[in-house]
Structure formats: structure tokens, C-alpha cells
């Protein structure tokens, strides 16, 4: 048996949902999670070997 909800109540719930969605999506979650990731990971450092001899002629 389906629970009956009147039209006003439905749109009221729907509207609240939309507002919560907008607020939650505005939170800087990605920014916060990326700060966390950067702090945990060691950055990979790419350094060109100082003594390597680059080719001077066309390959």
C-alpha cells in the first residue's frame, strides 16, 4: 500500500532536498580532500641527471 503524501508536502520535501544539495555541493570537499592527499603523499621529484649527454644529432 503506497503511503499517500499531498502535493504540497511532496514539493516541500523536494525543495528542501534541492536546497541541501545546493549547500552540500557548494562545500569545498574536493579542496579539503586534496589537502589531505597532498599532505600524506611524498611528491615525486624528477631531476634530470646532471652528467647525461644529450644527443646533438638528429635521431
Amino acid at each position, binding site marked *: 500500500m503506497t503511503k499517500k503524501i499531498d502535493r504540497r508536502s511532496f514539493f516541500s520535501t523536494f525543495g528542501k532536498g534541492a536546497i541541501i544539495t545546493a549547500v552540500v*555541493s557548494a*562545500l569545498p570537499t574536493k579542496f579539503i580532500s586534496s589537502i589531505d592527499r597532498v599532505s600524506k603523499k611524498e611528491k615525486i621529484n*624528477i631531476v*634530470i*641527471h646532471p*652528467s647525461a649527454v644529450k644527443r646533438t644529432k638528429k635521431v
Partner: protein
Amino acid sequence: MNDFRKSSDKLWKSLKDYNEDPEILNAKNNEFMEGVTDDFDSSKLSGLSRRKFLALLSASAALTATACTNYRDKGEIIPYNKKPDDVLPGVANYYASTCNGCSQSCGILVKTREGRPIKIDGNPDHPTSKGKICAKGQASILNLYDPERLTDPLVLRKKTDWKSVDGEIINALNNSQSSGKEIAIVTGEITSPTTKKVLNDFVAKYPNTKIYSHSLINDQQRRDAWMYSYGTDEYPAVKWNDANIILALDADFLGSEGSYIENMRKHTQRRETNGKIDFNRLYVAEGRMSVTGMLADYRFRISPDSQYEFVMALINELSSRGSSIVLDSNVKSKFGKYSSSKFESLIGKDKLNYLINDLNTNRSKSIVYAGDTLPKEVQIAVNFLNEILGNTSLYDYANSFKSLVKHSSTEEISQLVDSMNNGKVGTVIHFDSNPVFTLPEDFGYASALKKAALVVSLSETENESSAAGNYSLPINNQLESWGDAYVRGGIYSLQQPVIAPIFNSRQKEAVLLTWIAGNSSTFNEDIYHNYLMNSFNADIFSKMDTLADAKTFWYSALNDGVVNIKEKVQPNKFNIAAFNNLNDLSSSKDFTIHLHNNYFIGDGKFANNGWLQEIPHPVSKVTWDNYAAISPSTAKNLNVDSNDLLHIKVGNRNLTLPAFIQPGLADKFISIELGYGRTVIGEVGKEVGFNAVNLMSKSVQSSPFFFSNASVSKAGGKHELVSTQEQHALDDTFVKDFHRIRKIIQEGTLEKYKKEPNFLHEEKEKLFSITNEVKYTGNKWAMAIDLNKCTNCQVCVASCNVENNIAVVGKEQVSKGRVMQWIRLDRYYSGIPDEPIVSNQPMLCQHCDNAPCENVCPVNATNHSPDGLNQMVYNRCVGTRYCSNNCPYKVRRFNFFNYRDDFADSYYENDLTALVNNPEVTVRSRGVMEKCSFCVQRIMEARSDAIRDNRTLKGSDVVTACQQACPTEAITFGDANDPTSPVAKLRDHNLSYHVLEELNVKPNVTYIAKLRNTHSEEIL
């Protein structure tokens, strides 16, 4: 008549195909595998009310906005605020170096972008590799960025620092020395003269040291034979390009043995169909089905245990027709008892006579070559046969294979194990070797290791040997290392680092130099660099007749990557006693087990490389596994099918692994590839395949690689092997013998071609188009593939993978037909399963002028460029897969997942591995179709170079990745609108054809039909 196979023959891809198994017919009828294209079954969906739907919709919208995005912070792109010298953003730099993937030490050229290596190709200046390297070399770039490399020194699996490691180990070495205990250094094959010097210096500092050299895949049987035959274990290269007749005895010299990249090049120089046609003829006698066997003009099924008798029978036959050396009665009695008649029933009288007559009439212009796994008795007999035939003129002594450190004998390794068991060994150093995995178990090496006081492993990753020791010390990858190699006469090559060490690793020689100095503070990043330069000046520069000073010469040598040295070579005389004293070998009536090299993962060193694990086996097309290959008749006798587990017992040694029914194998014979079954390795390679070393023994019969007293039984149970061959089948349920009738594979014989050069096009019909043809005025890109030169080596696939950022998908996805490689090397059989004839065909996007994929794309994601490319716009693609449905060649690949992210056993995404990506090529994600682009990024680069130089872009300015990598130059690319270009000429060649030409899709990949050099106009 365009095809000279017997009319009853048909082309088949597998035994199921040959037997018209309903499963295969069904698979061909459904071009995608079951489940791939399934629609939603609406009846299985639960009923959903409107209310519930809207509630879920709003909830999912909220979830999507907050948590479900695939967002990844890739960091920011920041320009250099202090630009390194020699780096121009967006422009690649190239460095010459030397590969140490195997003992061939090929010259390589490393491409770097903004300081990170992204591609390895052959060094064109290297005299043997001539700009080509193998698939392992190509894909080895991934090893640099393997996230499971050792990052710091470990003591008992705990992170420590180099200073304490050095201090503790130097103390231990001094203790071992003062207490009279042995210090054992176990290495792989040493190819570097300077590394050898470091080892000698180590022995001088710690005189109790003994050096042991061991490698799983080796040519020791050949070296032993040359020592007996000619008094030296250095053997000459072969001038394959000068041989009219080649007989290979269980020798995969074009696929996995010796300097096979060089061999391929030289062999296919005699398969040229442009200009003067001067084909060689290749006979192969082998038990297994190798790449070389697939290419044979005549192939005989002879198992390794019968090769001795076969060679002796040939000696008997051919010596009776003349000999280049004097044969006394003793010698004659040695081979007189062997008759070729024994082999007539096995290989056919006609074929045997062809072989004998060809060898006889081509004396001094033919070569008989025994494989590395055959025992020294066969090798000596082959040396003798070549002497009789005068074939020694094809030996290239100037390019002989050098021997720097002798391979340790069984007795030497056994003594080491005894010493360890008796507590006489103080320190064991695994010097970039993995003896716990590569030594046969009955040596008892692993258990003896527990009794050594100190076990130190210098390796890039954890392995079975480092796991059994105290210290695991990270060493530099080859691209972070200095080094040199001297493996071929007259060729000295240099290795230089193209990137500073990514982790806290050290050059392995520098570690030893620090321990020699006896003080941790001695170490600096240049310690081995300076040592190498000094060694170079003393041994190389001092012998060069040059006006340059030492420093200039050093930089010049690094620029070139190789130094040619003049050496005096003196061929030795054959020692007839070596032949007279041979122990006669006889063939077995029991099962013979043959262990041999694999094609892509070496001795297990490359097992954690997803690209290499996923490249299909050149013959069976199986990926991510090894198996027991058996012939169809043997399988029938054993009542086993492919995937059934087989139990193999040799003495008290056992191995259970899946069977794979391989057409063309000898009967009562099993062939297994070594190098699989690693247990201590990264996630990609762990427990992939089965360790066939378990069947090897220190008690060698005739060769460590085959056994004639094996018992084989069905073990019960199955292990699924995944083969790519039955995937992407071209639909042929409506037409019997589709591949032959529709001329996908077109072949002929040399005899026929000489008589009727236009035989391929006798029945050509004019095709009409119902639409207006597009006129291409500027460049029009096209490719030609010469099937006479293609060896199915898969180097093009490896090169394409690296160049185009192709994802590894893992075994489970391969089993679903979702392999992502852009080039598929199709292998077709014809004839009967016991004696199949093999045809190979690289299949890639044909860049059709009337591309059927373009018409059906609803979003115009695939479309045509003005220069004839069938191109993909990834951002437009919505993943309908209509294009793949409509592609007659089945060359489009769909990203069913984000393969870089979703699979633990695949090419996973992490900050390190992502560095391997080519920045010029988009990394594709889930839901996107992809396929060969003709390396459009290289076309664009060449175009911008031409615009900058104010010149017209020529076809020869562009070299695709597959073309650059192809060891035999089978691939030609260029401008079809330029009548002088090689590709335009090949399109007009008598042997040129297009696959499925009658569809009038106007493909731009032209195939040059294969010619077989048989004695008749029929392909036998």
C-alpha cells in the same frame, strides 16, 4: 587462381575452428563476446513508482554533486622558474645508452620529455641492433616507474638508511674475512667489463670472496661445445644474410634466442620482394612451435631428444657427397651407423631429400644452427657438419659473442651450497640476481641460505632471494645508471643515466665500491661515474687512434652510445677429437619435456610489467600465463583438452600446470616456457603462470633444458588460459573458408611468382562506388606491411603500447575480449593440425577512405581528416560502439572501464606510473572508443617542423612508432600521393593487396603477400 593451397585446405585460427566447433561458429556469428553487448533486460528491473523514482533522482543528484565524481587532483601546471639547461618544454631530448634487459646489451636511444624518460627505441648507430630493440626493451620503460620498486634500504623488511647499512655490512665483511669465512657474490650474467673490474677489486679487498655467475636462460651448452670444438667459449655470429639455406634445429633464432633482433634483420634481407629477388630457404626441425618454426618454408616435427640422431644422419648423408675437411675411418665410423631413412617416415622422403640436396648444393652458402637448449653433443655435431659443408665461411668472427665471467658450473654452485650448510659462508651478496628463483630446487640453495650469517640482496624490487635474506638494498634502474657492455667483438657500448635516481637507490657497482673503500662516507653519486671514466680512458681511449682529448672522446662516445674497436680475430681450427669423443645420445620413447625461454618476461625479471604480460604469445596468443603445450594427438591419447591441468613428474620433481593444445608439436612431447610463477614480486606479476624451474635439476641428463624420462597424467581440475586469437573474429558463418575465399590471407610461392608475377591480380574486379569519391590533394597517409618480412615478433605492439599510452586491462578483462592493444597480430593456420602452415598478419585500423565506422557515429566522434586519417575525437565519443560494430576489420577498442584506475592486476594509476605517459597522446578514460591513429602526434610534430623550416611536409618525415620499432622493416609509412615514396611504390607492387577489398571501403593499409620458397608452385 589466386591461392595455391590445396582446395581442400582452409585457414583456421585454432583447433576448435578447424573442427568447426559450434562454440566458435557461434562466437564468429556474434562478433562481440557473450555479455559484451547485452542490453538491459527490462523484465529483470524492479517495478518503481513515480514517487520513488523522483526520490532516488534527487538523492542521486546530491550524491553525484558531493561524492561520486571521478575527480582527481592532478596538481597544477607551473612553468619552470629556473629552467634546466637543455630542456625546452614540449621538445623531446634523446640520450644514447645501453639496455641491460638481457645479456645482448643492445644499444638504445631514450626519449625524454621535461626530464622524464617516456620511450625507448634502438640506437641507429649501434652496429648490431641498428636502431631496433625487442619488446622487452621497448616496454622496460615501465620498470622505471614501477611503484613496487624498493624505495629505501631495508633490514629485515624494515626501512633503514644507507649509512647504517654500509657500516653494518662493512663490519660483517671484515668479520667474514678475519674469521676465514667465504664471502659469496652471486651475480647474473656479467656483460660489463667495468663491473667485472669492480668485482675483481672487491676480491682484492676481501680475498675470501668468490664470484658465482648464474642465469636461468643461457647459452652455456653452445659455449661448452665451442670450447671442445675450437678451444674457446667465444663463438662467432652468423652471417644470416649470406646463407642461401638455413637449417635451424630447435633454434628459435628469429624469436627468442641469442641476438634475435639482429638475426631477424639479416634473415629478412633475403626476403626482399623489391628489386632482385634472392630468397633464402628456411628449414626448421623442432619439437615445439616457435616463431622461427612459424616462418619456415619447410618444418619438421623432431623433438629435442632426436636431434642428435638427426644431425648424425645428415652428416652421414652429406659427407658421402664430399667434405671440406679430411675424414678418417674413425670419424666415419662415428656417424656411419646413423641413417636418414629413420626420419623419412617422420618428415617425408621428399622433404628430407630437398633438405639434403639443398645443403649439398649450397656448400659454404648454408648454415646449420642448433638451439641454445640442445646439449653440447648436438652442438659439436652441428659444428662438425658445418665444417664438412664448408659453412664456416658464414661465421662472423669479428662479431663473436664475448665471455667476460664464466657461467658457474653445477659443481661450483653445489660447493657453495655445501659451504653454506657447513657454516663456512659468512656473507652472501645477491648482485642483481635471484638464485632462489632461478636455481633448481634440488640444489637446496634456499634452505642453505638460512645458514649464512648475512644475506644481502641488491635489486630493484623485492624478489624470492631478497625475501630470504637480511638486507634488501635498492639499486638504480638502467635509466638511472652508468655502465658499459662488451658482449660482441669490436663493439663497446656505454650506458648513461637519463634521470637522477627517483628513489633512495644506488648504483649497484657504487655500493660495492663503498664497501671496498670500507667507509660509508666514501659514497657519492659520482663514485662509479668516475670509476667508469677512468676505466674507459685506460682500456678504450688509450687504444683508439684519435686526435681528440680524453674528455672530448668520452662525451662523443656518450653521444653515440657506442665505440667501435678494431680487434684482430683469428678463427680456430676444428678439433676433430671433440667429435670423435662424443657421447652418443639416443632418442627417448617416453615423454620428453622441453623447457625454454619465453618471449616477453625474460628470466622473470619483467614479470611485474603489465605491458609485457599482456602481449599475446606470438604463437598461441595466450596472455598472462604459461602452460604445457602438447600436440593434438598427444592430447587425445591423454584425454585432455586445453585448460585441463596436467601433472608432470620427472624423477622426484613435480609440476602441475594447464595444458594447451598446440598444433604442430611433436607427439609425446611437452614444451613449457620458463620465467613464470614468481611468488615474491609486485601485484602485477605475482603467481602469474607456473614455475617450470621446479622440473629442472642439478643432475643434468644431456641438457638442463629437456628431460626424456617424464611421466605425464591428467591431474583433474582446470585453469583458464586466456588467448586473444579467437577474439575479434571476422564473421564467416555465411561463407565457408572465409579467410581464403575472401582473400584476407593471400600467399603464393616464389616459383609461381617468378613465372607469373601478376598472379595475385589475375581475377581483380573493378569496384564502383555509389558516392562521390573524395579527392585528397596534399599528403595522404598510408601504410604498407610486407608479410614476407613480418615475423610476428610483437615488437610493434610493445612500441605502440608505450607511444600511445595503451592501458593494461588484466587477464580477466582479456578473457572478455577487452584487450586494448591497437595492433592485433593475427595468426592463421592452414593444412592439418599436426603439420600446420602458419600465416601471420598484423591487423590495425586501415584508415579507410570510405570508412564504415564514420557513417554510423551519431556524434561525429570518428571522422576523416583532409590528409586521409580516420581520426577519433575522444571528447565527443559517447560510447555507442556503433563504429566498432560496423568496422569490418574489428580493430576498434572500447574502454569498458577506466583501466588505469579500476584493476588491481592491471596498469594502475598512481603518481609514479602516470609519469610513463606520452604527453602528446590523450589518456583515454571509461566510455571512450579508441584505435590506431597512425601516430597522429608524430605527423603533427613533423608538420610543425616543416612549417617552421618553411618546407613542404614529406611522407618520409613521419615515422610511426610501429614502423620505427619493426626489426625487419616490414612496415612502411608515408605519403601515398607522392609517387616517389616507398609506400606509393608498394601500393603498386605486384604482390600488394588490401584485406576485404571487395567491400570498397578503400583501406589505406596495403599488404604485400607472402611468398614461400618451396620447391613447387604449391604451398606444401
